[in-house]
């Protein structure tokens, strides 16, 4: 189910590209205070934090960066549990690392009991284990610490040390060589100062060689800061006190887009990073192709005349044939793409590898100025050249300095070359001349239209028979296709039956048909034929019903994710939607002879920055005719636009339950 793998797909490249994110936020190796529990624990009580199961009392991170970029990260975290639930959650504590590129050590752990007792945790309580993995199988490991049973009021302090990064680096050379970042000499980091738990105090210190300049910026709030230096190094320190836990809102944007965040990098500019990304792959000869690949590219593009058609055919083949499953190639894994020749044989990989196959195919077909690009799906990239990426795509230069983007991970069975779920999205292309940070333009709602045309008839006794014809554009069409072709075959009919229950629990799917969902050159059309006994409510000379099309049978988490965002009266955070959307419902409902429309539900149009809604009911040629439109015009809906979004969505919901009255 390629389309359902998005999170993991993105995570793969997070691991690959967040070369700046040392896994273990580790800390100064200070021993437990000899006299007992830290003073800071006293003020942290359940009364003071009534909504928290645990509180981070203190977190210190200190990063010492060598000239090579090798980082030594020491972290101390002190957590006090306030409830039984919090105690249960801290029964084990886990730290992840990748043995191919990082070293991790639990330096010490201490339990501070509520009664003042201090208990060091034995090293035998630390287990070194392979991580659970799903879809990305790169052999990462974890340290799991079995914490002695905690009670509310107890605290646990963990001191860790790490060096290196959570991706695979070159394993040659000296003992520490494999921990040095591939962009040698550089360091970057993204640090959040807010999370799931309240934080009493958190600090981040980085010590850099004196000749290594640093770019840094704080987003979404303020941090205390200090800079000092000596003969050999410069020390930067940031801190925050009393940060509340992030509140959760349905479909809110990523925490990194709202939490107080520090972004820092020693890289001077995006073009520098772009050139590095270009060279690291070119130097590995990643996109070399064989005669067999060239022949396959020729076979796929045979008979096609335009460049766009040829590239789209190659995209369709790669996105369909290279399934999402990441296996490690060892050396270079994580930040270089798998060679196209490897992908061609394996027919499997993560986003970067699928992108690598497409670049190889493009080049084999003659589109030589094709490069990988780093993107961040689901969150912003701040304009600071730190790695803030979680996804990899393809850019081909169609004119000097003008690129066309392709995403083979997101486009299996899709007529799109660049998913409308990725508009807007930041990206950096890895090109020989070096590129700036760029952003894809937003998609207008009409690009992602979904149209339901209902052709139905109601009988005098209230029985309904009819058909729904579904078509769509871009994001919406792709999701319709995935329903048919990227789901277990035995489940497809059940899914369509489930859609129809929005009409009535008595609805019966009589049959369904569609154009070939694998053929992206033919617009998808799905036809559902149905009947619903006793659909309308006849009484006297009247009949009450809701037009079937208004009931929106397409309400599900992908197509109508915006519904989940509608909750309370106000929003604190912006809303992240999968894409903009336009729903068009058209109904022609033939009614028994002599019936006319006497009462139609109120349909006050809504117009706003985030969403529009309108609905209209008429009688025409003996049929009830419905025309309804809902447009979700923003993919990221600012909290200030929530009222408009809510108004439009509520209007659609009301219209879908309101009764229309006919009379004869």
């Amino acid at each position: 189910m390629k389309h359902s793998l998005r999170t993991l797909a993105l995570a793969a490249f997070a691991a690959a590209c967040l070369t700046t994110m040392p896994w273990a936020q580790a800390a100064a190796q200070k021993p437990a205070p000899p006299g007992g529990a830290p003073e800071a624990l006293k003020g942290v009580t359940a009364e003071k934090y009534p909504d928290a199961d645990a509180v981070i009392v203190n977190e210190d991170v200190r990063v010492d960066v060598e000239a090579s970029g090798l980082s030594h990260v020491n972290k101390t975290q002190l957590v006090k549990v306030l409830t039984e639930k919090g105690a249960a959650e801290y029964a084990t504590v886990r730290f992840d690392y990748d043995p191919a590129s990082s070293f991790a050590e639990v330096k010490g752990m201490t339990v501070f009991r509520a009664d003042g007792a201090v208990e060091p945790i034995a090293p035998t309580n630390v287990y070194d284990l392979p991580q659970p993995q799903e879809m990305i199988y790169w052999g990462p490991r974890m340290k799991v610490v079995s914490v002695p049973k905690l009670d509310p009021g107890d605290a646990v302090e963990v001191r860790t040390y790490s060096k290196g990064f959570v991706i695979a680096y070159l394993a040659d050379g000296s003992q520490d060589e494999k921990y040095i970042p591939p962009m040698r000499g550089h360091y970057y980091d993204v640090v959040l100062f807010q999370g799931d738990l309240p934080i009493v105090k958190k600090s981040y210190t980085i010590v850099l060689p004196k000749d290594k300049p640093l770019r840094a910026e704080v987003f979404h709030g303020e941090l205390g800061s200090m800079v000092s230096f000596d003969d050999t190094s410069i020390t930067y320190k940031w801190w925050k006190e009393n940060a509340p836990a992030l509140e959760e809102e349905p479909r809110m944007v990523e925490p990194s887009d709202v939490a107080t965040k520090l972004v820092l990098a020693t890289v001077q500019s995006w073009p520098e990073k772009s050139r590095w990304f270009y060279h690291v792959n070119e130097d590995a000869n990643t996109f070399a192709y064989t005669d067999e690949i060239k022949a396959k590219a020729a076979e796929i593009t045979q008979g096609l005349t335009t460049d766009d058609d040829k590239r789209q055919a190659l995209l369709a083949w790669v996105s369909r044939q290279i399934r999402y499953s990441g296996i490690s190639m060892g050396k270079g894994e994580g930040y270089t793409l798998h060679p196209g020749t490897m992908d061609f044989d394996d027919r499997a990989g993560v986003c970067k590898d699928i992108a690598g196959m497409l670049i190889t195919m493009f080049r084999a077909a003659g589109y030589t100025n094709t490069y990988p690009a780093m993107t961040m799906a689901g969150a912003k990239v701040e304009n600071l050249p730190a790695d803030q990426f979680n996804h990899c795509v393809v850019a081909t230069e169609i004119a000097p300095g003008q690129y066309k983007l392709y995403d083979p991970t997101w486009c299996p069975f899709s007529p799109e070359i660049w998913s409308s779920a990725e508009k807007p999205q930041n990206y950096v292309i890895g090109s020989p001349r070096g590129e700036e940070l760029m952003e894809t333009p937003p998609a207008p709602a009409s690009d992602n239209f979904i149209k339901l045309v209902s052709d139905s008839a109601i009988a005098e006794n209230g029985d309904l028979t009819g058909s729904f014809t579904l078509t769509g554009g871009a994001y919406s069409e792709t999701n319709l296709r995935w329903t048919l072709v990227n789901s277990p075959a035995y489940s497809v009919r059940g899914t369509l039956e489930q859609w129809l229950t929005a009409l009535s629990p008595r609805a019966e799917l009589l049959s369904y048909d569609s154009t070939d969902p694998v053929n992206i050159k033919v617009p998808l059309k799905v036809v559902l034929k149905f009947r619903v006994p006793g659909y309308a409510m006849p009484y006297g000379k009247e009949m009450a019903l809701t037009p079937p099309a208004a009931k929106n049978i397409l309400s599900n988490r992908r197509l109508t994710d915006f519904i989940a965002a509608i909750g309370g009266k106000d929003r604190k955070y912006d809303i992240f939607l999968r894409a903009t959307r336009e729903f068009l419902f058209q109904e022609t409902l033939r009614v028994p002879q002599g019936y006319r429309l006497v009462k139609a539900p109120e349909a006050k149009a809504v117009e706003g920055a985030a969403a529009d809604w309108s609905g209209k009911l008429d009688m025409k040629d003996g049929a009830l005719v419905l025309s309804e439109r809902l447009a979700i015009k923003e993919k990221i809906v600012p909290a200030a636009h929530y009222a408009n979004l809510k108004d439009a969505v509520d209007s659609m919901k009301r219209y879908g339950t309101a009764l229309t009255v006919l009379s004869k």
Partner: protein
Amino acid sequence: MKAAKILFAAALLSLASLAVSAALPSQYAGTPTAKDYPGADALTLSESRHFTLGADGRVTEHVLIVQKILTYQGMDEIGDPKIAFNKDNQTLTVNLCRTHTPEGKTVDAKANSFNEMTPYELEKAPAYTGWREMVCTKVGLDVNAVVEFEYTIADTKAWRPFLEGVVMLEGVFPALSREVAVTVPAGKEVKAKLLNIQGQPATSNDGGAVTTTWTFKNLPLVGRVAVSAMDEAFAPMLVFTTAPGWKAHADRVAALVQKAIETTSPALDKKTDELLKGLQDPFEKTSKLQSYVAQYINGVDWPLACFEFEPRAAAEVYESGYGHGLDKAVLLCAMLKRAGISAAIAAGRRLPEGAEDPTTVPCMALFNRTVIHSKPANATLWLDPMAPLSESSQRNLCGMKGLPLLPGMDEIHTLPPVDAPDQLFVNAEATLSADLSLEGSATISLSGAYSPYYKLQGSKDDQKAALAKAIGAVLPGATVGEFSVVRMEPGATVFQASFKAPAPEKGTVKALRTGLPDGSLLSNVRGIWLQVRSLPLVLPHGGSEKVTLRLKLADGQKAGYLPTALAKDVAAGSFRQTWAAKDGALDLTMEVSVPKAVVAAKDYPGLRDLAGLANAQASRTVILE
């Protein structure tokens, strides 16, 4: 701890792991395609699963699966199987992972295709991480490719008292051929049973070992949409064991359990005393301890048979903060013991009524949960160590067939249902205002499996919330005012409550919507959108329901649309409903009867009809003029 040994036999044979021929190898040429199996994403051409018990007590499991991919979805579905094995006691050898592409290539998996991981279920239970999963990523996949996958799991020492297994015989891929074989030393008896499928095993004798083989041809696809573990009790399976009888299991496990219960610690005793502080009533004590263990000792969801039903000591389970079903049962028993409350553990599985009984084979691998039988004072309480009483009590556990883990036990016991008829009654009366707001009172009576006694006893807030949900389901928007408990015991809960509901949103007509009561067997039926099922549907329970509602009309109000009288009888049950306008009031009477929890697949469409009729807008709406 020995590392799992992965042999890449094919890779060793061929450094260049690609070979090209004209098309599929001859043995796979002409095999069926998606056209022949339109509902399937892959087709199992052949599957063999062979268990061998050696004379030294070690077990070897050898598996060979040959599958043809029929759809793109099939590539993902068979692409990355995870094979569980116990690293401390077993080696896993992948003998072959080879893809034959439709273009004639042969692509063998390389070393990087095999990745060992800690199972997600065990990631927070380090004491159990001897259990690993090997992810085997198949490469070179394509539609119409054929994949050969062969592996062996071999014991490195005799660590299991018996050879046992439960093998599901049908799944989401149809199979042309499936074979299960069990080999034991001559003289060792294998007890086995096929459930929900017919078949006659073949037996062969070879060099002092006896092999019993079950072979099945043309097994159909069984979809798994909205299927529960209870439904799967009706799926074809094979159960086998070398255990001589249940007593052998009971004697062994009982000794382990007893020792584990007795191994407490000062810290555990202190926690028990702290939890019991101020409590006098034995039921309250039991409930408090059970709630703590169920909610705050993290549960480990991994087959108990993998641990050979061997619990860790109570003190260790407490200290680590996690445990599997038997660990948590042991901990709870130790705490109850300190509280002076007697308790005993049984291991078992819930079986729906009418399912074939697998426990005629003394196979512990059948059991997937534990339950504790306790007797605070004179009452009998069934405790689920993995969930609080409010979520799992006798009404949810009944039908469980299990073995009491006590020395000498030699028979399976069945956990009885709540001793009260399964009935739901709602009797409500309300006065309508002109704007359709309403105010009234209701009596709600829930008995047998409907009774949420353990969820509600002792908490007025929970009772009020449950009443609001119950009445709000019948009259949407209704909120509860004053209420009283008429009866509150495990088998029956009866409430009286006043309620009111705001006027519905103004629309084209004055429509009052009603609903089925919360907990009705015809509301929220699992997967009711499906028009057909291949396995029976197992409902939470059977029962009968009756709702009477009198709505006194405001001056001048009269009924416009009233649902017609409905009466439908099907094999699964019946639904009846009448609305009547009389003496300035509207009277609703609704009756539901679904006598049995198990609805056969052939009877399912009838149940769907009942649920559709009961929930349809035209059945639940009244229009007033």
